[in-house]
């Protein structure tokens, strides 16, 4: 019974097909339809037209946008008082040339700006006013920050646990000084360069003090885990912020608390040592105002200020923000603080401008992907 029905069905089906062929022309309709539908054209969503490149990138904030992690290129934005932010200024001024992956930091030395491209192992050197490409130092292992050491040289902290010496005349690496693990921020104090060894992919807690005249580590100071920021105050004392070990928001027994330290640069004596309250909230970044008497640092709930005469941390942030800021910079042009918010690290981030006095938001602008380090270009 079942078998018969099946066969009958197939025969029925075949018959119906034969019958259908009689009206031949209608079968071409779908073919015409397919050809019509297969036409496609597309345009990306409205992109803001690139701003006209200016030839003088001074008196404004240079913002390093790291770029997408591992794959993309970083970019540089320029934001000047009273004007629109200009993004991708390196590409704009260099025929689309890309900086490379993870634009970590920048430093102005003389007439040039040294842009450190961490993951691409290079330093791009541009004219500080026109941002035109001058030179490039390639194959320098995981560079982080650059600081001028003397008239003819600069130091580069590198994650191969060295500080490289580069010659400012020929842009060549002329030497290397072995330091701690994962050297990052540096500060020149009294003809010495203090190098913070944050630990790179692991953790370190030492500061290497390099004597510039001999290019050797003269002193190794043991501080707290992850020294993250260093500034000098008006009394020529050195302030250091240590993040402490652990992740924000994840309490764990092996975490350690952050510390704010004040060190005498001559005796290396720790004058002040203030511990942060929690081992699961860690401070990052350290900047100082123009009068060199108020410090600012990033904390999970915003930016805090600290008067150098205080003996305890402020309980409330100067600037509240639901997500922890990434970059932090101070500009005495208007006594303002700049902060960056990378949002989710896979879209363009934001830069905020706040009053350093009141913490009131003054302005904001959309920069590139992962805005981080910022420097004020004079």
């Amino acid at each position, binding site marked *: 019974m079942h*078998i018969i029905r099946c066969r009958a069905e197939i025969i029925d089906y075949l018959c119906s097909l034969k019958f*259908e062929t009689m009206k031949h022309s209608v079968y071409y309709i779908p073919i015409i339809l397919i050809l019509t539908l297969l036409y496609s054209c597309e345009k990306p969503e409205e992109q803001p037209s690139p701003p006209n490149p200016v030839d003088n990138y001074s008196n404004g904030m240079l913002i390093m946008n790291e770029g*997408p992690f591992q794959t*993309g*290129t970083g970019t540089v934005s320029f934001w000047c008082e009273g004007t629109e932010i200009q993004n991708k200024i390196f590409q704009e001024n260099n025929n689309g040339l890309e900086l490379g*992956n993870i634009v970590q930091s920048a430093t102005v030395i003389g007439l040039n700006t040294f842009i450190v491209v961490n993951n691409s192992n290079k330093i791009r050197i541009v004219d500080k006013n026109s941002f035109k490409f001058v030179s490039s130092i390639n194959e320098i292992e*995981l560079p982080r920050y650059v600081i001028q050491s003397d008239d003819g040289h600069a130091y580069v902290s590198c994650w191969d646990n060295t500080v490289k010496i580069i010659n400012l005349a020929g842009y060549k690496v002329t030497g290397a000084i072995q330091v701690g693990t994962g050297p990052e921020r540096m500060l020149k104090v009294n003809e010495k360069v203090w190098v913070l060894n944050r630990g790179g992919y692991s953790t370190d807690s030492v500061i290497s003090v390099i004597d510039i005249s001999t290019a050797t580590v003269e002193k190794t100071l043991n501080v707290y885990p992850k020294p993250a920021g260093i500034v000098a105050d008006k009394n020529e004392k050195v302030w250091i912020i240590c993040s402490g070990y652990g992740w*924000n928001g994840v309490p764990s027994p092996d975490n350690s608390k952050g510390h704010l330290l004040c060190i005498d640069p001559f005796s290396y004596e720790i004058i002040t040592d203030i511990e942060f309250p929690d081992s699961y909230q860690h401070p990052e970044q350290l900047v100082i105002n123009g009068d060199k008497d108020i410090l600012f640092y*990033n904390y999970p709930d915003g930016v805090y200020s600290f008067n150098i005469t205080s003996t305890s941390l402020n309980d409330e942030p100067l600037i509240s923000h639901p997500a922890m800021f990434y970059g932090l910079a101070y500009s005495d042009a208007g006594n303002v603080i700049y902060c960056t918010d990378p949002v989710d690290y*896979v879209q363009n981030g934001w830069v905020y401008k706040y009053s350093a006095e009141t913490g009131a938001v003054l302005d904001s602008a959309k920069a590139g992907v992962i805005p981080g380090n910022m420097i004020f270009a004079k």
Partner: protein
Amino acid sequence: MWRYAIILFFLPVLGFTQKVNTDSVIHLSEIEVTSSRLNRLSTGLNITRFDSLTLEINKGKSLSSLISDETPVYIKSYGPGNLSTISMRGTSSTQTGLYWNGIRLNPPNIDMEDLSLYPSSFFNDIKILKGGGGSLFGNGNIGGSIHLQNNPVFKKNIDVSVGGTAGSFNDYRAFAGSVVSNKKVWSNSQFIYKNAKNNFTYKNPDGEQVDRINTAQKQYGFMQDLYFIAGERNILGASLWYQSADREIPGSVQVPQSDAYQQNNSFRSLISFKRFWNKGNFQTKAAYIHSYLHYFDPSSVQEAEIDNTIVTNAAVVELNAEQSVNDRLFLSAGVKYRYEDCSTVAYKDTPDRNTTGLFASVNYRIPFIEWNVTTNLRQDFIDGYGAPFQPAFGLEGKILKFIYGKVNISRNFRVPTFNDLYWYPYGNLSLKPEKSWNEEASLIFKNKIEPDYELTITGFNSVIDDYIIWIPVTGNLWSPENIQTVWARGMEVNGTVKVKAGDAAIRLKAGYSYTKSTNLKQTGPNDNSEGKQLIYVPVNAFNGNITFTFKGFVLKYGHSYTGLRYTTRDNTEYLPGYSLGDALLGKDIELKEFGIKVQLEILNLYNMEYQSVAYYPMPGRNYRLSLFFKI
């Protein structure tokens, strides 16, 4: 006698499937070893099946190349021999299931599979089911699913083929297969070997032509299937599949120097038993899947060295019964249990997961109009999760003489991956499953005699709630959150035209997809991704090819267009679209003792410079010569 009963049982199924599905050769003695879920119970959904000619000329290719060369489905590739994942219907590869004879292969740690590691020559049946398949296959089938199968054919036959290809950039591949069968036994043995340097030249960001480095690959694998008919009404089956791949992992063009390498070993085994009776059958199968992945990235900076080993295990047991009550009503019900675990240094423990799924389906052919209607119901019970009930409803049939229609509505979900849950310290144990409603409707124009064509126009729509993405929660801490709602919708047009004139035949195949897949929710105070297209989901994709066969000659030209893909969630950065052309010329030479096939391919004919993943270059024009013998 029973053998005929088996065949005849499938006749109505195959007959109807044929009416609506794509072109394929049907052997009446071919048995679907899996249940009818993919065929009879997927009513209203679209299935792309690669026909035997397509599988034949793409024999040396990986599954990812087969899909990207033959369909408009988007494959996101880091380059030849490197990670290649699928994106279907506006979703990501974690929302797409990969099945081997009905057994899910997606590892629990990431739920996505690298399709570049799957040799397409291993299977005689490869299908892509688009859209929601949760009611049929369970967890993780929101965008679609890929089904790799070997269907035994019980007839006297010996089919041995040995072949090899040599391609540009030192790419050498060999494959051998033997299918031996009679009326009782079917044995299928497959072997592949691949050794490729992939050292193609590309233009680096400074405009110099340089060679791609650290991108070599070595791979070998074998598979054995054995099926036999026992006592006339039972089919017993056993399959083993082992594969090993060693490959170097190149960096992006911005950071081309790399010493990273990865080893993937996988072992898969399956036993099955199927018993037929009058108008019904019972099937049970058990599978064990083991995979080992070792990633090593040495670094001169000692702390930056990455050495990670990931081992996953899965065991599956499934029972299923099917019964035709009469020639209109068909019932199916079953239970599936799956255990899976994963160990890696990235987790604090070795997490595991038990999933039990109960499912039942009713398929009915409506009298007079002869439309097919199916309702599938499925409830999964997963450790720690209130898995949503997954119903689906499908309807399909003839509207007018040569016009058919179909619709499908389904509820689907995906549980978080082990990485989402357990990655230390970012894993988020409070994640909920992603849930979706998927709807689609198709109109099919079909003519089986001159001119033989089929054209399917499909509109689809789905909203995925609690879509998981990793976002920074506090400062340096990233964590996965159920934070997006994704609305994926669009249209697909797929068509085939076949014309025959004497010994010559022309086949024209084309597919176009338009996919809008946007996030409906702002995910943070400064987030600008609301209303924006998901990253790496092309809005427009086209793939078309024309194949001309004449007296053993095959001449084929394929053309594809992949539209721009955004690379940032706020759609400010994108990769431009690209068009690729491929040409193929082949000749079958029949000798007395054996047959020889010679084939020359020119890939990326127009030497297009393009990237599938940002800053990962793809090769320019390249060539491949294949030679194989058939006994």
